[in-house]
């Protein structure tokens, strides 16, 4: 038998985002099926996403992303493994999106910031290729901008 260590760093998305809104409001916007369409791939060229969320341990979630030209919907889905309200979420992620055809894990932590506001620390991975990582990093960047809009903080510069 032969063991080969193939790396100590792998393709992952690692994002820190700061909001004026308190963490309970950010958490609610993140998890409420009626609020998700306001930020998840909420941009020109897309119809509002369809979201189904069962916010319970092992509960399922599913988001359908709908390009406005209707060339085909993308479905992303998974299950929750950790839910600490207003603090932390861990959930699986898979879907018919480029680089998303296999299972990865999303972890999001919601933290207070001294002086007000909150912070989201997100990791997502482990991706199998750099291209898959890039595709998801780009998607998350758009979603975080959408989240800022949904929270009424769009267009603000640091």
């Amino acid at each position, binding site marked *: *038998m*032969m*063991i*080969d*260590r*193939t*790396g*100590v*760093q*792998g*393709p*992952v*998305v*690692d*994002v*820190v*985002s*700061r*909001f*004026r809104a308190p963490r309970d409001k950010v958490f609610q916007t993140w998890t409420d099926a009626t609020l998700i369409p306001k930020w998840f791939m909420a941009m020109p060229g897309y119809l509002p996403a369809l979201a189904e969320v069962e916010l319970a341990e*092992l509960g399922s979630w599913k988001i359908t992303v709908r390009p406005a030209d209707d060339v085909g919907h993308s479905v992303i889905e998974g*299950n929750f*493994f*950790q839910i600490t309200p207003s603090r932390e979420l*861990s959930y*699986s992620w898979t879907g018919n999106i480029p680089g998303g055809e*296999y*299972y*990865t*894990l999303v*972890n999001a932590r919601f933290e207070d910031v001294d002086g007000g506001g909150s912070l989201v620390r997100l*990791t*997502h*991975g*482990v991706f*199998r290729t*750099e291209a898959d*990582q*890039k595709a998801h*990093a780009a998607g998350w*960047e758009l979603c*975080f*901008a959408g*989240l*800022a809009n949904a*929270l009424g*903080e*769009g267009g*603000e510069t*640091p």
Partner: protein
Amino acid sequence: MMLQMRAPTGPVVSLTAEFRAPRDKLFAAWTTPALLCKWFFAEAGYRTHDVQMDLRPLSPYQLVITPVEGGEPTRIHGNMVQVEPNARLVYTWTGACAGEQYWTMVDVVFEDNPDGGSRIGLSHGVFRTDADRAMHEQGWMACVAALGTLVDAD
């Protein structure tokens, strides 16, 4: 809103291993509690016990590891995410074995080796610190070595 996209890579365990044994034997050793106890933390002064394994998606599993010389047991647990018999296992993982307790995902692929025998590719992450990563890698290296001893013994 202030957004910081950090490095496109993070701490993960990534390893491959080749075995003389066929992949169905490896898959069985990975998923059968009585066999799992023989290689998972079996050679490092620890005893693995109270293994619960259910291969249906989302079913819980657990492993309890206790130092042979005595000491606090560590419970590793999670849920099956994807099970393709003799081909792939994806499961979540958490336990008091990292600096802080959080969820990671293990993805193991079982393949035929073109030269005979089989190979596995294992990925485990995303860890929050290099120290957590290094500790899990050390654990996996010892476990996979013990797995080789088990399945390649004739």
